[in-house]
């Protein structure tokens, strides 16, 4: 990754790479887009348009007739308690999937790169990095089942047994089904466990881009580790921090499996997230139009977040260039 961005940008030919053609048949390139476009139209555009349209109808599903509803579903959505709760839960999901992993990832990456990698050997550093990354490639469903086993409610649960041994008295906490705080806490813990490795790997790669001589110079000037971290490391890897924040925020808005597996939205629908709510409404709800409105709302939020992030990024880049 060393200094690749600058060199590639500079090497970019003044004219775009293009195959010179006898005659002007640039249109021929469109042929290559046909399979991609057809698939995209069927698998993505058709469902999106259909659900968006459906959000303005009442529909019981199956052979029932659709009744035009105007903004009924959307207005109902704003007043819907579960919908609002599912979006407030997203704030906690963002804490667990974006904020904690990014901050912890910064610290871990800095320690692994700066201390372990430089003073104890690169091999050990990459071994530890791989360990942190491992949960990222496990199927979330499998990780969820594993956590569900550890958090079993009765005295069979691993965590309960452990606490019983430590405290000397029988502990039977219903972590996932008892109350909102432990249920949501468990879901968040699973998310942190899964997400942590992603920023660690990205940030460590970014750190390799930083010129070691910069650190040396700072060290000679008597800068502490923290001062170096603030003055050199953070500004240098800021683009990566940005990318990690963007991708994980979008993943957080779409989160489904951890909630489905661990709590199934419970206890008493308190751990609903928008994806799970939409899914349940599509399957069990009486009005698919309302379900479509939930799904459309999530889609709009995700796209808005992506646009805002990309806007901010281009603005920052322009500032850098000028």
């Amino acid at each position, binding site marked *: 990754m060393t200094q*690749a961005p600058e060199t*590639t940008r500079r090497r*970019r*030919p003044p*004219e*775009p*790479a*293009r*195959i*010179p053609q006898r005659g002007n048949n640039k249109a*021929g*390139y*469109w042929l*290559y*887009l046909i*399979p991609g476009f057809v*698939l*995209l139209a*069927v*698998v*993505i555009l058709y*469902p*999106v348009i259909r*659900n968006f349209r459906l959000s303005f109808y009442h529909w019981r599903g199956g052979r029932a007739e659709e009744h035009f509803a105007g903004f009924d579903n959307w207005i109902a959505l704003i007043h819907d308690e579960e919908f609002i709760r599912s979006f407030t839960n997203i704030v906690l999901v963002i804490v667990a999937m974006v904020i904690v992993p990014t901050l912890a990832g910064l610290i*871990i990456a800095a*320690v692994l790169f700066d201390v372990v990698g430089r003073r*104890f050997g*690169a091999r050990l550093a990459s071994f*530890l990095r*791989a*360990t*942190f990354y*491992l949960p990222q*490639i*496990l*199927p*979330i*469903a*499998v990780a969820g*089942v*594993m*956590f*569900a086993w550890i958090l079993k409610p009765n005295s069979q649960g*691993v965590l309960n047994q452990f606490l019983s041994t430590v405290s000397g008295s029988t502990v039977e906490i219903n972590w996932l089904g008892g109350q909102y705080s432990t249920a949501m806490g468990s879901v968040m813990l699973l998310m942190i466990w899964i997400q942590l490795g992603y920023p660690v*790997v*990205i940030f460590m*790669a*970014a750190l390799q881009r930083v010129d*070691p001589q910069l650190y040396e110079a700072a060290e000679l000037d008597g800068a502490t580790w923290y001062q170096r971290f603030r003055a050199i490391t953070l500004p240098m890897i800021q683009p990566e921090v940005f990318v990690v924040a963007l991708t994980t925020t979008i993943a957080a808005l779409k989160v489904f499996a951890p909630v*489905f597996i661990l709590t199934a939205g419970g206890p008493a629908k308190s751990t609903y997230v*928008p*994806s799970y709510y*939409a899914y349940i409404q599509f399957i069990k709800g009486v009005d*698919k139009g309302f379900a479509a409105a939930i799904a*459309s709302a999530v*889609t709009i939020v*995700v*796209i808005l977040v*992506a646009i805002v992030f990309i806007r901010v*990024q281009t603005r920052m880049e322009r500032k850098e260039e000028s």
Partner: protein
Amino acid sequence: MTTASPASGMQGTRHADPLTRNKRRPRTAVEWVLLVLASLAALAVVFPMVLLLLNAFKSPADYANSNPMDLPKAIDFTGLQDFWSRYNFPRALWNSVFISGMVAVIAVVISVLNSFAIGIGRVRGRTWIVLLFLMANLVPQEMLFDPLFKLYDKVGLLSTPWAVILTFVVIQSAFGTYLLASLLGTFPKEILEAAAVDGAHRRRILRSVVVPIIRPTLSVLMVFFFIWTWNEFLLPLAFLNTQESLTVPLVLEQLNGERQTDTTTLIAGTLISIIPTIIFFLIFQRTLTRGITAGAVK
């Protein structure tokens, strides 16, 4: 994005000179403490999997009478056998391999075709086309599942691997198109010109010039498409409804949902479901770490 070339990998860890000088300085106590803390954190991450390993080989009676932190009294395969045969794990494993493998190959082909037109063909409105493709990656899956369910039902694809393959070819190739389009946008013009002068046709250039040069990136993409598809949950859950069609995560979820499931079966099942991923991880570790960083930064 322009840094996608995976050739510039993680080798950077080895730049030697300034570091060797550093190493000669004795390690301080603070550095040892940081090493211990980092190792403890890593241990905490793998700890749940260690717990699985400790308990997967206990007999049901042994499990009931012992602490989860204890070693098994004797190695027992009841749980493993139960899961393996009753839930037809080999079938689920094959389904997962087939679906993920097909998606990996087809999605890479589609990504190459798209990005050839966008990056080298420079078709008009290419920024918008890339954004349109990226939609596939942004749209939450609950927006897709109901209309697609009906569509696949109508054409008879429901509960066949192709329902999932078709869907994820589109979702994964969206990312592939985005990554490759910017990579091909900086493709050296001289090479293309030389090939054209030699009389190569456009299709020929794609196959014999472009693809061989970007092959390392393509293999990274393939590994990632495979693993992303392997881990998918919501849409396979919606589209695969017969016992024979289930993938590994779905079988495990089914097992977890059944109340009377024996705990040792569940633990053993979780462990076996993790093993293919771990093997895959060990084989492709370098590719994976290289790949996540590719395309991370503009």
